């Protein structure tokens, strides 16, 4: 995965200089590759509680045409299912509230805080 210009490049730090490189797009701009979503989330401290603090009423979701939660959730916790419902996770949740705020169907997403001491812990917020 360590092609030149990868943000994960790990060479050349010995003399204080950092690796130079990067993909060059047709316009000549440097482009930095992203990292996988799993890798992105791996650095975050989640203390998963026993109780799901989000619940989704999939019956309501079947009639939803916008499904804003699926793309807007920064933790990517919502996945559409083939039968038109929404599959949700709660474990790696930032507890931001985006999902219920963008949800246009009253009562589809029930959102509370995780139990005390559980959930996300930001070290560098």
């Amino acid at each position: 995965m360590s092609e030149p210009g990868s943000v994960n490049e790990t060479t050349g730090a010995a003399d204080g200089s950092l690796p130079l490189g990067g993909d060059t797009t047709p316009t000549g701009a440097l482009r930095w590759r992203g990292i996988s979503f799993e890798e992105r989330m791996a650095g975050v401290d989640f203390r998963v509680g026993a109780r799901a603090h989000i619940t989704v009423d999939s019956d309501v979701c079947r009639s939803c045409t916008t499904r804003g939660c699926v793309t807007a959730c920064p933790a990517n916790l919502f996945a559409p299912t083939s039968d038109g419902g929404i599959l949700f996770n709660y474990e790696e949740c930032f507890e931001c509230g985006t999902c219920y705020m963008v949800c246009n169907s009253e009562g589809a997403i029930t959102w509370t805080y995780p139990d005390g001491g559980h959930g996300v812990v930001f070290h560098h917020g």
Partner: protein
Amino acid sequence: MTEPSAFDAVVVGAGPAGSAAALALARAGRSVVMVERGPFAGSKNVYGGVVYGRVLDDIIPTWWNEVPVERWVVRRSTMMMTEDQSLAIDYRSHAWGVAPYNGMTTVRSHFDSWLAGQATEAGAQLVTSTVATGLVRDSAGRVIGIRTDRDGAELRAPVVIACDGVNSLLAKEAGLLPRAEASHYTLGVKEVLDLPAEAINERFGVRGHEGVDIEILGCTRGIPGGGFLYTNAETVSVGVVVSLPHLAEAKVRPEELIADLKAHPSIAPYLRGSHLREYAAHLVPEGGYDTMPTLAADGMMVAGDAAAMTLAAGLWLEGVNFAIGSGYAAGRAADRAIAVGDCSARGLASYRADLENQFVLADHKRLRKAPALVLSERVQQRYPGLLCDLAEGMFTVTNPTPKAGGLRVTRAAAAKHGVKLRELAVDTIRGMRIFG
């Protein structure tokens, strides 16, 4: 069930607002408990730029000697960008780098814990890992305490100060904020990237404890919002803040917007070779003055993000200082109300009056129209490109063709971005009225 614990005041949340409220009450000799749902103060909190400490001058003299700071911001840059252009107003001040300083970058887990420590040292109690699950009311409907998720036990007090953050479930339960409109909120997503201090110093042109804050417009694929990049001691933070309904409508994933920003030719050189250390997301109440909840009810007040106190007005992006200012004022109002034995909404009315007389509500009121202008379609989607093209037109050397006049360049740029000169004039006047 055992007798509920009784205090003079219960503060929900040990963020900057809650800690400031508890500090004010503890200093006044009141018994006060802070209830924090995370394992430590600041564990649920994220910010995006600069913490301005001036508000602390009256609360903690020479706070700058003890505050957990990453870097003191001496360079503040406002950047407008298109896909491959950028234009920045870059201000640098020596004075900002020496006491009493202006703004700092910090880490919330450290900063919020420090501020909560100030409150506990003054005599406030802090209970962590405890969620306030609801309000306790008396038969007349007055708030007289909270329920917690520890055995459902209650904490009773004549005043509850809800500093429970942007999603404030307590303000909603109390009916102070009957319905939160998604359009009044933005989502901030942030990456904290490892970068050695020497690399930060070289790339950003700073040394020692000096830091840089760059605020960016035009980097969010037309979704109303903006971006930021700021330096910590050995990390840099980069992220975007975008309007919730527009984000959902655009069907763009938030982390893609950060990836775009990191890839921009004006930003990428700052970040090369860096590694993601932590990814974070948080909501921001950006609606401003007109979207604030009622600030006090019988036996209860709201402060900080719970009261939508974040100021997001283009040139000014401030939240932590408004949280501290509003929290401290709420604490003092609670103390006065307890002293006269009237904790009704009327007894707590001095809270709002106090805020109106200081920067917290004065700034919000003066800039009440700013969020709408800053998030408007022209400011978001057209002006960054227009200004970049204007700069390009002025600074591109076209020999042997003679230089074009300023007005012609402006007309050409405006036409290219579909902005009528009249609209430009209208927005300029609006801007001057709001910010002037």
